[in-house]
């Protein structure tokens, strides 16, 4: 029986993962290598949203895997393995931040995540709330081609890197990794409203970056 096609590029089908986790608990090295291959890159990408330095991000990833091995018996497959690994990684990144005397930006979200500020520049609207200028169509609106094309992908990745940390973490978890909003709130200690505000700001900035790229490429 072949596994169903993944709805999202991220997490692998659960049944198959459960088998791998079972083999891992029995000490199967190949199963560990397979799981590291599947989730290692995503963990590194998430770690890079918490810590700027690449080598520190790699250390956080290593810490997370070792902690996952030590805590393996506690994993009950109520969440997907990837979500579980993400939560371990977020804790590791948080502990490291505390040790280094800085806190992750999420602790200060009360103020930063409020509704005070508009996500889209108010200068783009008439006083009556209509757009000042017509929204230009894009030459490419196929997500596959946007992510696959070298230039558009580079534009997207540059724009993600330029986001404020909290926005970057939320949009990475929601749109890049496909986690549910509630899972992200648990992981980052956010309210649903803060999570949505951060996601909206990130998406509008990334849309704007793509719009400017298309405009420049015209």
């Amino acid at each position: 029986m072949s596994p169903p096609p993944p709805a999202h590029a991220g997490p692998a089908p659960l049944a198959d993962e459960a088998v791998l986790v079972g083999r891992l608990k029995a000490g199967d090295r190949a199963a560990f290598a397979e799981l590291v291959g599947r989730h290692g890159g995503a963990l590194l990408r998430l770690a890079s949203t918490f810590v700027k330095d690449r080598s520190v991000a790699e250390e956080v990833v290593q810490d997370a895997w070792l902690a996952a091995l030590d805590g393996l018996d506690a994993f009950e497959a109520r969440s997907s393995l990837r979500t579980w690994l993400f939560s371990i990684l977020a804790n590791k990144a948080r502990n490291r931040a505390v040790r280094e005397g800085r806190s992750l930006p999420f602790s200060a979200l009360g103020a930063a995540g409020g509704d005070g500020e508009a996500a889209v520049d108010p200068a783009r609207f008439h006083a009556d709330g209509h757009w000042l200028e017509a929204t230009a169509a894009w030459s490419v609106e196929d997500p596959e081609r946007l992510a696959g094309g070298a230039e558009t992908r580079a534009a997207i990745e540059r724009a993600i890197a330029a986001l404020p940390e909290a926005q970057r973490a939320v949009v990475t978890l929601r749109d890049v990794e496909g986690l549910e909003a509630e899972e992200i709130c648990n992981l980052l200690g956010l309210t649903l409203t803060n999570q949505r505000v951060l996601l909206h700001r990130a998406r509008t900035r990334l849309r704007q970056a793509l719009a400017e790229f298309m405009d420049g490429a015209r």
Partner: protein
Amino acid sequence: MLTCKQIAELATAYAEGQLGFGDRLRFQLHLGLCADCRTWVRQLGVTARALGRLPAPELPKELEAELLRRFEDWKKKR
């Protein structure tokens, strides 16, 4: 009637299914009448979906090798 400015602020709440019944209807009504907002909201969705198709970075080979070494240690003390 919602304004374009309000649509631009509510677009993610709409897409994430977090608008109440009345706001959802008002949002849809505006989109039905406003081509600019239709384009803008569609592009916002396209952006989000493109993110889901970005390839994950590769784990450096040295880190992978180190993890496998650590796995052997973990197995021994288990």
